[in-house]
């Protein structure tokens, strides 16, 4: 016993903090096109190598290569590009609106736009996504009215969520977008239950859930995976691994020696690890998992490997906890630039059309913000006060009726 070394308490630390040299450029990035694409209906037992690969379709020259190329129409590619550009422009504009005091809070998804956009276009209208705040591109890809979105962010009189929710914590049922909440992880299991209901009712609609990599530490994540595997639920369980929670790096969520996709193995489901900045790879993996779910082969866990370029939210300054240059050195590039390059390389896009699209998007965003500002920014306009008491229950009970009248927002 006395010969044993003393126990050591291990606390993970990221490769670099501000003032240290970022090692991110040295991240090993496998070449595009190399990962095998097994039949979507294969047994999960035969898929255990995939969580340690990285599925990539777009190579450095913007060519689509390998078995995962989803062979999308140029029209669809342009749709994806537009959704991503719109997301970025909208984020930039509304982030600025926060700085100008027009709202209380905002979160950008810069660098991660491909994920929501590709998946939104890959799934069908009857499917339901259980989002995080980081996949607003899902809504932009489906044409959610921008002005309604800005009204929500301003919590004004026209806010579709009636002033009750924090900016960007949307709900958009008609767009296959489940209600967001500030609590991390709590809806992952809802997606599984929703998928179980589809199976029980034998209807053709599958579910897709998102979790940040940090959030995979929550019990909710693991419980959802267990239920999904046990009931073979038709659900696509996604982890957007953008390397950083707030100030903590992915290793602190337990992947110093493994991958998030590999969590799937222990639950007996397939796990894919995918270049999240590659619109084509995201689409292909989603199609594969959807085919599997619709084919009664149950859940798939997909890790999207990406990078959070902006701060976590309007409340933090990322240069306080990670090297400033990390974002630029991220080896998987910018999802928007990569899809743009691809479209150009296949002769379906050019600089002129790109500038025209940017101008069109800019005008759309401006006009939506202007319209919403005319209704009112945060505090300048709000829904009727009675809305505070609605929706607590299906019908308000005596307490709410009395309180509503006490505040002067309705009769007792």
């Amino acid at each position: 016993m006395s010969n044993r070394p003393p126990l050591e308490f291990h606390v993970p630390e990221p490769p670099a903090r501000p003032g240290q040299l970022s090692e991110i450029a040295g991240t090993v990035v496998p070449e595009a096109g190399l990962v095998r694409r097994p039949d979507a209906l294969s047994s999960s037992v035969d898929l255990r190598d995939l969580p340690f690969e990285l599925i990539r379709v777009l190579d450095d020259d913007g060519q689509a290569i390998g078995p995962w190329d989803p062979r999308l129409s140029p029209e669809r590619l342009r749709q994806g590009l537009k959704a991503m550009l719109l997301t970025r422009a909208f984020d930039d504009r509304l982030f600025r609106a926060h700085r100008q005091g027009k709202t209380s809070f905002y979160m950008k998804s810069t660098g991660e736009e491909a994920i929501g956009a590709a998946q939104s276009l890959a799934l069908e209208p009857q499917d339901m996504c259980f989002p995080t705040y980081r996949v607003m591109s899902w809504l932009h890809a489906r044409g959610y009215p921008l002005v309604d979105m800005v009204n929500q962010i301003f919590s004004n009189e026209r806010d579709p969520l009636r002033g009750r929710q924090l900016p960007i914590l949307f709900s958009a049922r008609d767009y296959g977008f489940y209600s967001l909440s500030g609590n991390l992880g709590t809806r992952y299991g809802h997606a599984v239950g929703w998928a179980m209901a589809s199976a029980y009712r034998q209807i053709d609609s599958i579910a897709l859930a998102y979790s940040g990599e940090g959030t995979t530490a929550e019990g909710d994540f693991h419980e959802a995976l267990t239920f999904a595997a046990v009931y073979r639920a038709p659900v696509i369980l996604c982890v957007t691994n953008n390397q950083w929670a707030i100030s903590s790096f992915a290793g602190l969520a337990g992947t110093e020696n493994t991958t998030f996709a590999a969590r799937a193995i222990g639950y007996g489901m397939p796990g894919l690890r995918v270049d999240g900045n590659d619109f084509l790879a995201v689409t292909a993996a989603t199609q594969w998992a959807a085919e599997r779910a619709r084919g009664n082969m149950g859940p798939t866990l997909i890790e999207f490997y990406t990078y959070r370029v902006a701060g976590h939210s309007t409340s933090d300054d990322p240069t306080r906890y990670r090297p400033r240059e990390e974002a630029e050195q991220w080896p998987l590039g910018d999802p928007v630039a990569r899809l743009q390059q691809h479209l150009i390389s296949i002769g379906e896009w050019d600089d002129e059309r790109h500038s025209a699209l940017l101008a069109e998007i800019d005008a759309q965003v401006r006009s939506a913000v202007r319209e919403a500002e005319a209704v009112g920014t945060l505090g300048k306009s709000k829904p009727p006060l009675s809305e505070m008491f609605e929706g607590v229950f299906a019908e308000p009970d005596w307490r709410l009726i009395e309180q509503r009248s006490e505040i002067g927002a309705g009769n007792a």
Partner: protein
Amino acid sequence: MRELNMVKAINDALGVMLAHDPNVLIFGEDVGYFGGVFRATEGLQAKHGLKRCFDTPIAEGGIIATAIGMGVQGLRPVPEIQFADYILPAFDQLVSEAARLRYRSGGEFWAPITVRSPYGGGIFGGQTHSQSPEAIFAHVTGLKTVIPSTPYDAKGLLIAAIECDDPVIFLEPKRLYNGPFDGHHDREIASWAGHPAAQVPEGHYTVPLGKAAIVRPGEAVTVLAYGTMVHVALAAVADAGVDAEVVDLRSIVPLDIETILASVNKTGRCVIVHEASRFGGFGGELSALIQERCFYGLETPIERVAGWDTPYPHAFEWDYFPGPGRIAAALRRVMESN
């Protein structure tokens, strides 16, 4: 003595305890390198090392479960839950484990953990960055629940909590971190500068758990409050021009029943104020205790002023918040009725 705001006073208490007791460990989401989203642990990792103040995975149940396990071996963990709204995944650990370990093991095991968590609204945080969950903890026997209202108290109470052998929920009114917010959100925001209770001694001192403070002596009516609402109540008393006695409970478990009863017996009137929703709130317990123990000393019915029985609504922050206007109205009602 120096002047500190409440976050700095809390930071100071944590630093004192890290230096004072090698068994004290601080951990939670973003508390290590970053120093916490409200900066309460700023500089502690740099000063005391990675193993004394460190980041955790995002798993509140795991944070509290491991804190209990460490506590059982004799450490004094001070975990942070980033927002009190996010303490719920740890609820089972707190209620079924931390609170009952000593009892069910016949005194063999206990866990002296202090769970710090910012709570309360007034920062436009919406439904999940604004809640006040003190009543649900007060309802659990075996947990102590402490809520400071000044920098001086925050430091002294936090040190007392860390040294206490029972599990303590230490709720920090985040709206008070930078100043004694009095609920007049439309007026200029005061900082702690110049406030007597922002004078914080260096080093180790404690404020005992379970001792209320009379922050404004008065004869006409007793106002019971804690956390942010202490300052809001003081403003309401000034606005209403009533000679109220304002009692800052400081901890709701253990509760300083003597101070409460002495004050109500003296004034014969009582207004209870909290930010949490009214129904099932801690005000109900206070009201019942007063009714049971000084019914014949009461001149008028007890009033409660609290958040409405709805979630905390983003756009209606100041309609929901039980501000000085609503408290002053209750004070006038209590003074007029007899």
